[in-house]
């Protein structure tokens, strides 16, 4: 019986044999269940670990790199920033609201586990196309879930991304990034040490939530038609519990009560207890009868792998227990001693502290001995090149432009993006800008933090290596557009089934592209998350790496320019003119997803980013927008839609010039008196410039190509999402 149990739990025969070798005996079902969740793709990164090691992770300002719950960097003034991004794709596919909500809850815990107060969330979302009713239902539910949880837990959601494409039909992507600040000396790590110390479980009681969620939900694709009864039980988030948990934990850290702390996420108690023990080089005894249970009759393995939300495991010295209980009582947070740190290296699960041993495993074997796979890779057949001629014939410039416009404000107006009085530039622009405050006194430092998330599956589908480089480059330019220089990157790698060699090739290429860009720009990767098996009905999603970049603004004394167009402004395009249609939003609109991607020249890009940053911080320009999906046409239209005036531009001969995409291009609007200053700065930096035209009037005019009222642009921009998604569900 037991030898087929491992397969039911998702362990391969080789993995089962390896477990037998580690234990030097046959594992019992509880032990097997614990290995199965910890050795799942989700927890062990068994398909990606080998490749992730190629990413650059160090810089003098990095305090904690990948491997802990979140990356931490030093931003000066005694302040550190913790940052992390994580996916909640599969849960969101079956219960959009709760899937997204618990995704927010999970990433928050990763941040306050480090001793940081979470001050900002960002969400990067991908759904099937807007004409698919189920995709709209999912999108609506996900946005409501992020809104419902994020707002109530009291952490502002200050930016993100949203995109719709049939590649995500049945498998949406929900990636959430969280950033927190902490006094540099309050850094807390997830380790247990000190024999005799206690493991205290804080927060919610444990139910049968997400049992098997880790191995079943996150590690195996599922088809669209899941039998309702067989669905694993879904986790429900409780933002109120999490809010109290945040406040209690921060007060506990301030009182210096913990030796280490760890959030409970995937694989629940199994992961938290074994990870703290193995990081501290100790063992741990866990008394499952001390775990408060929400439902009667729970079995040991259910308690050990439950993914009930809003729980933390604190390791404390016994003489601090009363103080800890006191703080928890103040915040109405349950606290129960469930474990003891022991000498040796064994994680033992007991039915009482002096009772029967239900499982006994070397704690570190759950992590360190997890399999690492070098899965076969295979480059897919060459893509056929899209002919821009074919596109030109097919396209009507005006209607194409209008179809490419979409204002995400329908999304972010549902998110509190202002709490904590930090948000100088909120969602809706190239990057978000927050005031950097002292995390203890709340006093302003007159410096700023900038955050952006970027991804583009169209580029990565054409060329995952170059596409990923371009995404990092876009993030860097987005930071420059608000006057910030990059300090660190986190990433979430959303890919298909790694057992498919072409998917493995995409993953490996994408990581190489990211490594190359990060090395070129000098940006350390401080954390990330890998989400594989993003497929539905056997079709893999297009490769979708998402990057989050955090940067710093040295002097934040005025609002960065934004998309402002002022009457009489000149419009100038900065950067090389090399563009193509491969991987462009425009070709996707016409159902063509192949072609060539133009590689980014990292040196040129850096020089342009520096130029842009100086233009912004010296206050020379009035408006700015980097060119991305949809090219020059979409950038122009977005700036027009967000300001009061129309434009007249020339030197754009055809649709290709309007919608083609290429790296390192930035559009600025500038007072005529400052144009010479701009041109001379660009010239000395060796950056090409194109004078496009003028701001003014109430029409959107591209000479010989487009002449429509500004209102037409505004309307297309504003109404696309509300028209498609406004209907909504009532579940909340």
């Amino acid at each position, binding site marked *: 019986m037991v030898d087929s149990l491992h397969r039911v739990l998702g362990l391969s025969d080789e993995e089962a044999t390896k477990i037998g070798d580690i234990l030097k005996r046959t594992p019992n079902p509880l032990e097997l269940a614990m290995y199965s969740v910890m050795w799942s793709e989700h927890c062990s990164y068994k398909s990606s670990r080998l490749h992730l090691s190629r990413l650059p992770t160090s810089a003098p300002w990095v305090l904690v790199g990948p491997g802990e719950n979140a990356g931490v960097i030093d931003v000066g003034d005694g302040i550190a920033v913790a940052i992390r991004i994580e996916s909640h794709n599969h849960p969101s596919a079956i219960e959009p609201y709760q899937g997204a909500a618990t995704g927010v809850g999970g990433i928050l815990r990763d941040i306050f586990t480090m001793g940081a107060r979470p001050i900002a969330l960002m969400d990067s979302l991908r759904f099937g196309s807007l004409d698919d009713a189920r995709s709209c239902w999912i999108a609506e539910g996900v946005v409501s879930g992020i*809104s*419902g949880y994020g*707002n*109530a837990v*009291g952490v502002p959601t200050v930016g993100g991304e949203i995109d719709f494409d049939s590649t995500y039909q049945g498998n949406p992507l929900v990636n959430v990034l969280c950033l927190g600040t902490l006094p540099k000396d309050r850094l807390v790590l997830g380790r247990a040490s000190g024999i005799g110390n206690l493991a205290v479980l804080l927060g919610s009681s444990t139910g049968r939530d997400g049992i098997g969620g880790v191995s079943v939900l996150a590690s195996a694709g599922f088809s669209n038609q899941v039998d309702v009864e067989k669905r694993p039980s879904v986790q429900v988030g*409780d*933002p*109120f*519990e999490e*809010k*109290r948990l945040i406040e209690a934990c921060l007060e506990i850290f301030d009182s210096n009560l913990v030796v280490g702390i760890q959030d409970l996420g995937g694989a629940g108690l199994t992961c938290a207890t074994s990870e703290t023990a193995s990081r501290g080089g100790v063992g741990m005894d866990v008394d499952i009868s001390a775990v408060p249970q929400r439902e009667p009759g729970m079995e040991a393995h259910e308690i050990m792998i439950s993914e009930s939300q809003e729980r933390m495991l604190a390791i404390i010295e016994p003489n601090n227990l009363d103080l800890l209980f006191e703080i928890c009582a103040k*915040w*109405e947070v349950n606290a129960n001693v469930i474990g003891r740190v022991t000498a040796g290296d064994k994680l033992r699960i007991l039915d009482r502290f002096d009772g029967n041993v239900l499982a006994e495993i070397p704690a570190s074997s759950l992590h360190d001995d997890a399999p690492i796979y070098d899965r076969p890779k295979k480059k897919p057949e060459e893509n056929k090149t899209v002919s821009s001629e074919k596109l030109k014939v097919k396209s009507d410039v005006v209607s194409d432009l209008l179809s490419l416009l979409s204002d995400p404000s329908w999304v*972010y*107006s*549902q*998110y*509190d*993006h*202002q*709490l*904590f*009085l930090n*948000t*100088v530039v909120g969602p809706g622009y190239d990057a978000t800008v927050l*005031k950097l405050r002292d995390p203890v006194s*709340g006093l302003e430092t007159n410096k700023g933090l900038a955050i952006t998330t970027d991804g583009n599956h169209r580029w990565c589908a054409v060329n995952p290596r170059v596409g990923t480089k371009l995404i990092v480059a876009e993030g860097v330019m987005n930071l420059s557009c608000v006057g910030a220089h990059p300090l660190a990157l986190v990433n979430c790698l959303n890919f298909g089934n790694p057992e498919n060699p072409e998917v493995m090739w995409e993953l490996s290429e994408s990581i190489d592209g990211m490594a190359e860009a990060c090395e070129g720009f000098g940006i350390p990767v401080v954390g990330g998350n890998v989400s594989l098996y993003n497929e539905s009905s056997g079709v893999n999603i297009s490769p979708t790496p998402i990057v989050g970049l955090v940067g710093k603004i040295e002097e*934040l004394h*005025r*609002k960065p320019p934004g998309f402002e167009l002022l009457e009489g402004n000149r419009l100038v395009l900065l950067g090389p003119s090399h563009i193509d249609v491969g991987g462009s939003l425009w070709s996707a609109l016409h159902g063509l997803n192949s072609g060539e991607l133009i590689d980014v020249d990292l040196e040129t890009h850096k020089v342009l980013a520096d130029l842009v940053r100086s233009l912004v911080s010296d206050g020379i320009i009035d408006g700015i927008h980097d060119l991305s999906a949809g090219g020059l046409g979409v950038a122009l239209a977005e700036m027009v839609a967000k300001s009061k005036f129309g434009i007249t531009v020339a030197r754009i001969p055809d649709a290709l010039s309007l919608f083609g995409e290429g790296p390192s291009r930035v559009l600025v609007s500038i007072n005529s008196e400052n144009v010479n200053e701009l041109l001379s700065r660009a010239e000395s930096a060796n950056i090409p410039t194109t004078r496009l035209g003028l701001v003014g009037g109430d029409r959107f005019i591209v000479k010989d190509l487009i002449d429509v009222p500004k209102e037409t642009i505004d309307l297309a921009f504003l109404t696309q999402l509300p028209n498609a998604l*406004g209907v*909504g569900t*009532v579940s*909340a």
Partner: protein
Amino acid sequence: MTATVGVAVFPGTNCELDSIHAVETLGGDGKILWHSTKNLSGVDAVIIPGGFAHGDYLRPGAIARFSPLMSAIAKFAKNGGPVLGICNGFQVLTEAGLLPGALQKNNGLKFLCKTVQVRVETENTTLTRKAEKGMELSLPINHFEGNFTCDLDTLNSLIDHDRVVLRYCDNPNGSIDDIAGVCNETRNVVGLMPHPERACDLLLGSEDGKVLFESLLGSN
């Protein structure tokens, strides 16, 4: 003269530090009042700030209004003490019966975070005495349940007694008669859905909230 403003904190409240910040920017002193206390420690005014007291479960404000702090605040208000409820604080005050009406889900069933224009409708309250009637203010809103509702008799009485404090210029949530804020009969208790504490700094977009806090700070 420095006014001390007590800022109520229930589990789930989240705008308390922002409110204290606004009070202190304008020269007042902010002081946290924990929900389990009955002691207002001599504050000159009370703010019940925004957030999700007790998770907003059941109804926003339904659980919070039973706290010991709320009985102390009711007594304080009865003695003429200025009390300001912002957003969730407004909801708590209606649940506690210190203000009329109730706040339902927004029309359209979406949470709304954006900046709106509101008009000051009366100068005769502790929150608006330094403002001018008819003045338009640019203030952020941030709520799911901000749709003010009451029966017609109550509405008529609010209008007849000049108790509508703020109205939306462009109603975002379906509130009856565009009402964004109301006061009690004695005009010392005011509740409003917009967040004036988010509008006290030009770098964040607006300074229009300052006049309201100035009124509150100088109002006893």
